[in-house]
């Protein structure tokens, strides 16, 4: 007997709420949805695509998207346009205009179509422009339906009222499109199809809005010839790269092959799709703009809107790479690390054009960029490695230039001196003596100034040498003698207690404990120096401000105790952190504490307060002491190098604080007399979180 019996066929079915899940909930903002429809126009080989916003400053408005592409026939509407989840486009087949289809799965389209209550589609196929097809979707019909398939959609044929192409009208928008959204949309549309290239079949999306016209005229400015230099790097199918840097006239400055560019990674090829990286770098110094057609402000505005490196996949831009505030190649942070000769997002414009035929790069379903797989990370790395190479090359050139300049200046200076001496010699005898005296006096003060600068330079070099020496000889200079003293004195302590019993405490305990304390303090200096030099601390990453302060205080503890200085920390309850290196924060705190310790010399009681608070995504760090405050020096001058009120002071500590805070995009100010009576330093630093 058969124990199974056929009852009925069954299918997985979808409730209409799935449309909401895949539509609205996967659509982060109106511009993303609209952009998906514009990409459909690109895939249909349209040259023009117009987006009109009708009464969208309030809900209930409409959007009309009109293109002059290939249009659709009944089959295309039914089997492609209305089919969700499967792309009808194959990226391996180019369109007639040679475009690689954007290859969307239709989810972005659904998200856009669901922005309103109704959708009206009119399309006229290019292959048969005698026909026009209309389709109307009323989303309210789905509300009462049990499954998506239950709602019947009708494709109607009528005599053509439009030329070939497609028109989509989204009506009854659920929400208004604000001014900022329009601006965002305009910017994205302008950048969508590489406005910086010279493609004759270029796709021209057009938004009917004043914001768009503004961006359009801005983008058309094309200030590329004002770039100081231009980097172009190509990675081929096999993952090998080559790079070239040219100057503003197109003359070659440097070039490199794969071997030179990838020394750091042992010549390993990049596992990413073939790509080309172009980067135009501008030097934003007002003096170099006096002879140009454009002003520095114009260029800065252009770079503010379009600066950064944009990423184009098969000809279409992928957001958010290169959006304002999106520094995906970490250009700004690398510039902070080593400021000389490195471009930032506000001083350069670039694009990476990737030919992603084999779909090595995969876009996230919510269109928020690429999945960060190996191909994407290698694509990023190839661009970063090329920029590192260019920075190194430019640094070499800058160093050579500096040396040449030094030699030239020396020659010029002695020639000028000779000239003046000759002029004086030919002057009437009556003024000759006076002139000579005036010139000698000028030369004397100038030499004094040079001497002062040379001393400052020497000071920097001496301090660096002191650091290098401390690191090199830390092991034998401080480590070993301290080990020997520590072990010997501890042996005396142990053996003394055992041999002398009570007598030890009377005779030896005090001197022994004095030595132990002193050795500990000695050791701290070596340890503190080594800790400051630790390579690990210069690594970029998450830096927790409170932890760094605690670490510095722990290192300084013996010195603070020795000077009888009490440090009170008043930390905010949360844990502020930023992206940077521990060394940067440490150098701020260390220099401020050093500064306070000097100010507290001679004070009756010696107190420091370190306070943190959070305000508008910034940590405010205050360091106050009860020393003599800022006196005998103008408060603005304390930040200048070499300014010190102490005979042996370097005058560099506060300069380092100011420069470090500036590098972290922060602000620093000083108050001559604080609530504690001494100086107060207030530092505001942008944080990632707390």
């Amino acid at each position: 007997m058969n124990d199974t019996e056929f009852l009925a066929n069954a299918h997985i079915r979808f409730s209409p709420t799935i449309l909401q899940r895949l539509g609205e909930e996967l659509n982060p903002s109106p511009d993303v949805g609209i952009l998906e429809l514009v990409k459909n126009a690109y895939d249909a080989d349209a040259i023009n695509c117009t987006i009109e916003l009708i009464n969208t400053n309030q809900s209930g408005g409409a959007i009309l998207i009109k293109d002059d592409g290939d249009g659709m026939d009944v089959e295309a509407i039914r089997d492609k346009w209305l089919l969700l989840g499967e792309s009808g486009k194959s990226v391996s087949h180019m369109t007639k205009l040679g475009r690689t289809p954007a290859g969307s799965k239709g989810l972005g389209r659904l998200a856009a179509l669901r922005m309103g209550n109704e959708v009206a589609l009119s399309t006229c196929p290019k292959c048969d422009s005698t026909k026009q097809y209309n389709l109307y979707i009323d989303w309210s019909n789905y509300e009462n339906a049990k499954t998506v398939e239950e709602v019947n959609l009708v494709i109607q044929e009528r005599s053509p009222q439009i030329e070939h192409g497609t028109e989509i009208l989204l009506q009854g928008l659920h929400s208004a499109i604000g001014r900022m959204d329009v601006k965002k949309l305009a910017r994205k549309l302008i950048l969508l199809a590489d406005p910086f290239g010279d493609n004759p079949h270029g796709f021209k999306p057009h938004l009917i809005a004043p914001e768009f016209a503004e961006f359009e005229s801005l983008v058309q400015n094309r200030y590329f010839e004002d770039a100081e230099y231009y980097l172009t790097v190509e990675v081929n199918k096999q993952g090998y790269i080559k790079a070239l840097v040219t100057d503003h006239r197109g003359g070659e400055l440097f070039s490199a092959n794969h071997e030179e560019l990838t020394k750091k990674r042992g010549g390993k090829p990049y596992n990413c799709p073939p790509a080309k990286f172009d980067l135009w770098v501008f030097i934003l110094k007002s003096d170099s703009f006096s002879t140009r057609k454009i002003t520095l402000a114009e260029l800065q505005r252009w770079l503010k809107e379009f600066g950064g490196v944009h990423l184009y996949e098969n000809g279409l831009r992928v957001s958010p790479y290169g959006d304002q505030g999106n520094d995906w190649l970490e250009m700004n942070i690398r510039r902070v690390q080593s400021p000389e000769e490195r471009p930032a997002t506000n001083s350069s414009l670039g694009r990476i054009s990737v030919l992603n035929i084999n779909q090595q790069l995969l876009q996230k379903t919510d269109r928020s960029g690429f999945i960060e797989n190996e191909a994407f990370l290698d694509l990023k790395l190839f661009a970063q490695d090329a920029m590192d190479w260019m920075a190194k090359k430019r640094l070499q050139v800058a160093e050579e230039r500096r040396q040449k300049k030094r030699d030239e200046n020396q020659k010029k200076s002695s020639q000028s001196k000779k000239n003046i001496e000759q002029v004086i010699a030919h002057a009437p005898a009556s003024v000759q003596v006076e002139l000579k005296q005036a010139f000698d006096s000028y030369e004397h003060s100038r030499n004094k100034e040079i001497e002062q600068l040379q001393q400052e330079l020497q000071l920097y070099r001496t301090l660096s040498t002191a650091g290098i020496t401390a690191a090199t000889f830390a092991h034998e200079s401080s480590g070993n003698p301290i080990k020997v003293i520590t072990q010997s004195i501890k042996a005396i302590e142990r053996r003394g207690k055992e041999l002398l019993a009570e007598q030890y405490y009377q005779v030896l305990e005090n001197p022994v404990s004095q030595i132990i304390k002193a050795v500990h303090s000695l050791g701290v200096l070596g340890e503190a120096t080594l800790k400051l030099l630790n390579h690990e601390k210069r690594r970029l990453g998450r830096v927790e401000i409170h932890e760094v302060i605690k670490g510095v205080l722990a290192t300084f503890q013996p010195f603070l105790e020795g000077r009888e200085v009490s440090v009170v920390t008043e930390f905010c309850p949360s844990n502020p952190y930023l992206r940077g290196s521990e060394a940067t924060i440490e150098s701020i705190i260390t220099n401020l504490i050093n500064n306070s310790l000097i100010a507290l010399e001679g004070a009756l009681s010696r107190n420091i307060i370190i306070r943190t608070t959070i305000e508008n995504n910034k940590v405010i760090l205050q360091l106050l002491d009860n020393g003599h405050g800022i006196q005998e020096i103008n408060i603005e001058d304390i930040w200048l190098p070499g300014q010190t009120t102490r005979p042996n002071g370097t005058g560099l500590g506060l300069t380092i604080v100011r420069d470090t805070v500036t590098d972290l995009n922060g602000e620093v100010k000083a108050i001559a007399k604080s609530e504690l009576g001494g100086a107060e330093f207030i530092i505001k630093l942008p944080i990632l979180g707390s």
Partner: protein
Amino acid sequence: MTLTIANRLIESVQIIDDDPNVRESYRYVVEDLKLKPVSINALHNLDQFVQSLQMSGNSAVICDYHLRTKNYATSNGAEVVAKLYQSNIPSILCTRYDTTIEEIREHRQYIPALIRPEELDPDNLEYGLRQCIEELEGNYLPSRRSWRTLIDVEDVDETRQIAYVLIPGWDPHQVVSVPLAILPPHIKKQEIKKQRWFHAKVNIGAENMAELYFERWEIG
């Protein structure tokens, strides 16, 4: 005098340090533990040294990390202690490890006892030897026992050949530096990349970062 730990008799402690004055000062600690100090004046052949200790028996070792500034030894202290431990000889590494954490991490699995020089005294020496001997007998402290856990690569410094990883099972916020040299041959260095996941056996009971060691890596 002798010391007996887990049925193992210790009579002498060999002192390895490239500075004769340091070797001399370490003798006091060993003597105060009532053991015989033996200063090693040079260590050019580690295998031979290991063999001689295995033959004489009843020896333990205390060793500094920096041994190569002069012509004292061909290996660093971490390599020496690891080799001795694997040869069943109780050994202690005595160093300030702040700046050599990655180099030591490469061998940390075989270094159960690490003492800072200023903390070296007879009690800590005995404790370190006890910890090492117990481990050689198979009795691991919870902080030294390794468990299979997830490793998230945060960053890679190719110049220094170091990966920076997060070990959520130990501390989800602290970045740990791992020398790429630690990786087994089946995982190529190129596979260690930012935002990749791996599995490894790690002593996630460790109290601080310097104690962490890694073994049996797997691609996640």
